[in-house]
């Protein structure tokens, strides 16, 4: 079998199947990672003592715990107390937790950078605290958090490969299996790497477009 046939008939179909799983992991995890990130950031900033403390503990736990260990706990430890997840579910939950924790740090920083007068003006018009947060503070903070959030999205693309450690054959896993079976490490990993590069590039371009679309006229360099 020559190189070209191997690539076209064995490698690419296998990687494509893995890529589909990788994309599923990302598409399911990212939106919840952002939503939960917003929730944690708001909870920490405005939540009062107990919610704020709980959010802080959550972030510290995720920061302090290696993602792989978190995945192992979700997949291998929780069944012992009667909670069972499929490999896909466990991966997604782990990714959402990780993504949310780091997103929340970017969003929290951005919330702090919104001028205090914005909330005061909103309250002076009769908005409740939560109305001022949702209609005035968050729209400004999220715009400023876009570069950080896109960074986290890129990390998510890459750490999604850890799902392979829970037996889920995503892109990296598919590559690994082919490489071992056919002893084609070089070709295979070049292709795998190139596909990740494409995903990351698309994300970077997409984030740039979103940032531009939502840029506030006249407020360059903010």
């Amino acid at each position: 079998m020559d190189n070209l046939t191997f690539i076209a008939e064995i490698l690419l179909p296998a990687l494509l199947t893995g890529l589909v799983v990788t994309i599923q992991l990302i598409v399911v995890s990212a939106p919840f990672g952002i939503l939960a990130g917003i929730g944690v950031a708001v909870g920490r900033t405005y939540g009062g003592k107990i919610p704020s403390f709980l959010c802080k503990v959550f972030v510290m736990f995720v920061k302090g715990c290696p993602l792989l260990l978190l995945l192992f706990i979700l997949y291998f430890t929780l069944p012992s107390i009667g909670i069972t997840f499929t490999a896909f579910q466990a991966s997604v939950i782990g990714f959402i937790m990780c993504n949310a924790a780091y997103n929340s740090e970017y969003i929290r920083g951005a919330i702090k950078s919104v001028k205090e007068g914005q909330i005061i003006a909103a309250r002076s018009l009769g908005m409740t605290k939560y109305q001022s947060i949702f209609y005035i503070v968050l729209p400004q903070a999220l715009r400023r958090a876009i570069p950080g959030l896109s960074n986290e999205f890129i990390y998510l693309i890459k750490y999604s490969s850890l799902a392979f450690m829970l037996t889920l054959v995503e892109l990296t896993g598919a590559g690994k299996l082919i490489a071992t079976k056919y002893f084609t490490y070089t070709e295979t990993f070049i292709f795998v790497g190139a596909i990740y590069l494409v995903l990351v590039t698309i994300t970077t371009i997409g984030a740039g477009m979103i940032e531009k679309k939502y840029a506030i006229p006249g407020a360059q360099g903010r």
Partner: protein
Amino acid sequence: MSDEEYILRVEDIHKKYGNSEVLKGVSFNVKKGETLVFIGPSGTGKSTLLRCINQLTVPEQGNVYLRDEEVTNSGAGINYFRQKIGMVFQNFCLFDHLSAVRNVEIALIKVRGMKPEEAREKALYELRQVGMEEWAEHYPAELSGGQAQRVSIARALAMDPDVILFDEPTSALDPELTREVLEVMKKLAQAGMTMLVVTHEMGFACNVANRILFMENGKIVEEGSPTDLLENNESSRTRQFVGGLVMGED
């Protein structure tokens, strides 16, 4: 004089920050359509007083009544009173991510629950009142300070307030821009809006104010018509202070 004639009553307001008492019992009444100007040295509690009126700052003691309804101790009801007590800030505080017209209409939609089309129409009407209709689609960062301040006045007006509080509305502006904002405020006063204005603009105070209240050390120490305080009384504290302002001694 019966209470009904006063649209706003402020009774014995006390406010402390830590150990320092910033307001030491401030009381005054405002009739509908009156313009009151507050002047006084820096740090005497003028801003704190305005913020106690709409409860952005909560005083330890004292009461505020709007049309005989208590604003202080009103719980969640405060969000209703804040619509009726507009506020205009020194640095405008327009919502940076919203165009001028969105700035004016957002509270109409979110707080009053007005339909978007209706709110837009009202917002454009208020912008017209302050000469900013052509700038409706522009964002705060694209406006001059004077234009931004006029939009923020329109934003307060949109809620149909009974009273508007102005905290040094022109202090961040060049003389040229100050004039255009004072013009708008004068027009408002003439149209019968009730206004409480903290300012150092003595021209405005003399021409527009019904009463000047001079504050010092957390108290109102003098109160009267501009003529009483500035012309008839040679030795008034207000006159000494204003003299200092003119001669740059403040």
